[in-house]
């Protein structure tokens, strides 16, 4: 029984279809990536998973059961638009939010202290939110979404607006939660985060799921089209190989775009014949490329 199963959900606002029959499953201890351009239907999908709005068709199952009010306690939500009470102390509002999700005051307090400790900011306990920097407000917001030990956490653009140090901190926290068995639904524009965190993804485009499956399998479906070559001396005649579409010279060597994978072998043979090779790699397509390709192609 998967903790979260979305089955053919469908949502229409007036004439406009917001989500058109999307299905996916998220296992325990899994981070599921939900990708899509702005307005693709991510927020609507998340709102339906959160039970804020009901799907017109299809259903969302939590551990095999349909939505109920009691379920709210096992859900955690980090909204894309961050929001906390600006004038209220961190401790007051986070304990309040945890209490609303069915936690006792004592447990909430000790959890909050543990989390502040984890983010190395225990002194914020008595601070008002408006006194904190934006990045630190984000940390507090993140704590707000996980303070009640939820089973399913929905993270909408979790890392936006954070500096690289804090992104790493939050990323490692998310991985920790995953390893402790928390199920996460993760939406973002930042493809490198998805590649690092998610096992399975769905790319939404104009209300439809256009690409779906495990990251590995999706990548294997797309041909390898890039070769990185670093050599001792110059290599001549790369352009002449059949299947090579473009050759770029960078500091680190050559970046060669190829139309068919057989060309990679030709490049290697040519290079060996001319000089010593320091690096040769046939790159998988990045998710970024796949995203732009799938979404871009359908944009016309």
């Amino acid at each position, binding site marked *: 029984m998967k903790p979260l199963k979305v089955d053919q959900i469908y949502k229409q606002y*007036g004439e406009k279809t917001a989500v058109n029959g999307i299905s996916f499953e998220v296992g325990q201890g899994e981070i599921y990536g939900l990708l899509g351009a702005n307005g693709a239907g991510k927020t609507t999908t998340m709102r339906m998973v*959160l*039970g*804020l709005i009901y799907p017109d068709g299809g259903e969302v199952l939590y551990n095999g059961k349909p939505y109920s009010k009691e379920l709210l306690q096992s859900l955690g939500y980090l909204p894309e638009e961050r*929001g*906390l009470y600006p004038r209220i102390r961190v401790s*007051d509002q986070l304990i309040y939010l945890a209490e*609303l999700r*069915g936690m006792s005051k004592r447990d909430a307090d000790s959890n909050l202290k543990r989390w502040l400790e984890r983010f190395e900011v225990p002194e914020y306990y008595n601070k008002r939110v408006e006194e904190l920097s934006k990045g630190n407000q984000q940390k507090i917001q993140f704590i*707000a979404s996980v303070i009640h030990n939820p089973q399913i956490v929905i993270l909408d653009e979790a890392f936006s607006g954070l500096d690289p140090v804090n992104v790493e901190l939050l990323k490692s926290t998310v991985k920790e939660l995953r390893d402790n068995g928390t199920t996460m639904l993760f939406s973002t524009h930042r493809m490198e985060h998805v590649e690092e965190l998610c096992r399975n993804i769905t790319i939404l485009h104009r209300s439809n799921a256009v690409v779906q499956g495990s990251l590995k399998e999706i990548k294997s479906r797309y041909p390898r089209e890039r070769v990185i070559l670093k050599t001792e001396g110059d290599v001549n005649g790369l352009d002449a190989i059949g299947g090579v579409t473009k050759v770029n010279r960078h500091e680190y060597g050559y970046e060669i775009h190829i139309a068919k994978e057989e060309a990679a072998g030709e490049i290697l043979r040519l290079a060996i014949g001319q000089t010593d090779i320091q690096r040769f790699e046939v790159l998988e397509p990045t998710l970024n490329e796949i995203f732009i390709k799938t979404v871009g192609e359908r944009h016309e």
Partner: protein
Amino acid sequence: MNKFWTVVGFTVRNKLRAKSFLITTLIMAIIMSIGVNLPAIISLFDKGDSGKTIQIGYVVQADDSAGTKLSEQLKSYFASQEKPGVEFIEIAKAANAQEAEKALKAAIADKKIKGYLSFGEVTPSGLPSVTYKSEKMLEGSTTLKLESALRNVRTENILKDAGVSEEQKAQLFAPVAIESVQIAATDGAGSTAGGKDASEQGMAIALVTIIILILFFAIMVTGQMIASEITSEKSSRVMEVLITSVAPLTQMFGKIFGVFIVGLSQIIVYVLVIVANASMPHNSDAFKQYNIDLSTIDPMLLVYALIYYLAGYFLYSTLYAAVGSIVSRTEDLGQAVMPITLLSMAGFYIATFSLSNPDSMLVTVGSYVPFFSPFVMMLRIGLSNPPVWQVLTSLGILFVSIYLAGWLSAKIYRTGVLMYGKRPSWKELRKAMKAYKI
């Protein structure tokens, strides 16, 4: 239910802790203390003023018998008064007007007198024309006293000439006795059952005015508070987290109830301040002087006031909550709550402008209209005598309206909190309700 109280507790705690709230309450309490003490303060100043006696000089002038006679009559008139405030002093004897003036001016310079009178031609009133001369500007109160003294002297003179006896004079000056008592011909919910004399009627009007005023401000202030709390939750986006933590209805009614507790405690503080001030000894004296007797207040009137406060509060607050939920930015809130504010103002003004006319058609009809009845029915109960069934009917209509307003507001609220961007029109709201399946 648990979460409901969590919301209530959070709302109350944060409101009571807010500096702005504490300062407003303190300022209001100070203003009210001053208001209650005002009669005592006024009488304090009055005493200081009436205690002073103005000395007015006159001269026995050989060539002006009419003026001299009048001066002496005025002197004896003021001497016979209990609290004259004016004293006539003979300064000197003089042969003519110039000499008299000189002597009197010298007396003013010596601070023996404040002013003096000079007399002119005899006017049709039988007395010479009088000029009061002093160094001060606009001696209104002294002139008034002199005027009434002169009138008195004239009347005395005429009566004496006509040969009226002392007894007839006494009859002529005795005040006629007329009193108006308000009675209730039937048994009703009003407080007039035992009949009311003029001072009690005045009391009742003052009391009802105060009750309606408090009702109006309590409803307006707390209603606005609810709306702005909800809008600020929405504009700070904390709403997104809240609605995924707790059912919107629990949240909305928790907020309404929390602000209700805050508003009620504020009113209790004000009432305590008023009662504490009013029961101070110097104030009870001052009240007596102005014919204010707190023991004539009918306790039932206060019970009705409380019922109508509760009903009015919950009727308006649900609507304020609904409006607060559809507005995304605090700046837009003022405009959005305008219709509700106008509605409550209409009720308030119908009531206050009908204070002298509590039985008019407008009042009778208004006392059944749910948004007006908290104010208008209070007016009727306080100042006239509506039958009990009318009061109950009005309350019944009010309670049904509260239920309907609560139901509608809940629907709007559940939709509104999810809608961001520009304020939605009714049509958009209805569409969204349908889309969200609310």
